[in-house]
């Protein structure tokens, strides 16, 4: 069966520090991969998606970037965090466009 791993669960970082969140999927190949951010008490905002290795599409201009160095690995990064980068980050994957998204357990990022 397929599983998605996302870590860390919680992260506290100072303003201006770098960021690296990692997400991996097991049990499938060539998944569509997604990074979402959820601000406190709000809905999910799509940040990046990827349909293949090295292929990244950005939905919102921001301080963040994403990379897909391997088929089932998706990384969210920042060179210098801002206070506004705080939030709950969710990684997700889907096997086909019409299929549902399977979500990871999320990372709560607090930038202080």
């Amino acid at each position, binding site marked *: 069966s397929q599983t998605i791993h996302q870590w860390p669960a919680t992260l506290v970082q100072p303003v201006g520090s770098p960021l690296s969140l990692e997400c991996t999927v097991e049990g499938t190949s060539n998944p*569509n991969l*997604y990074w*979402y951010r959820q601000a406190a008490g*709000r*809905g*999910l*905002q*799509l940040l990046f*998606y990827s*349909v293949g290795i090295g292929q990244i*599409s950005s*939905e919102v201009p921001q301080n963040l970037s994403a990379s897909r160095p391997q088929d089932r690995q998706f990384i969210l990064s920042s060179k210098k965090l801002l206070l506004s980068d705080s939030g*709950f980050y*969710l990684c*997700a994957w*889907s096997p086909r*466009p*019409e299929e*549902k*998204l399977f*979500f990871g*357990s*999320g990372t709560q990022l607090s930038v202080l």
Partner: protein
Amino acid sequence: AQTVTQSQPEMSVQEAETVTLSCTYDTSESNYYLFWYKQPPSRQMILVIRQEAYKQQNATENRFSVNFQKAAKSFSLKISDSQLGDTAMYFCAPRRYSGGGADGLTFGKGTHLIIQP
């Protein structure tokens, strides 16, 4: 771009009651999919139900059912015999099919549903 409106920020009902959560969306697509996700206090996103826009029959999944009105672009979720474990944020999310639909789901702002004992 798709927009999603969930007009009820919060709802509270008694256990065993039936509750309906509303969702309207705006899309220029003719073929798409619609999803309801729940997010309990654990914050794990869980699929509740899925509907294909080309199907006239409303989807059902145990106590959960939808009222899909394509012309009105409305996709409401009905929860029957509500249980304490249904307490969660509920998000409506359309997904377009054209272009491979690879750009994922567009989420509404959510409805916080509270089931009272």
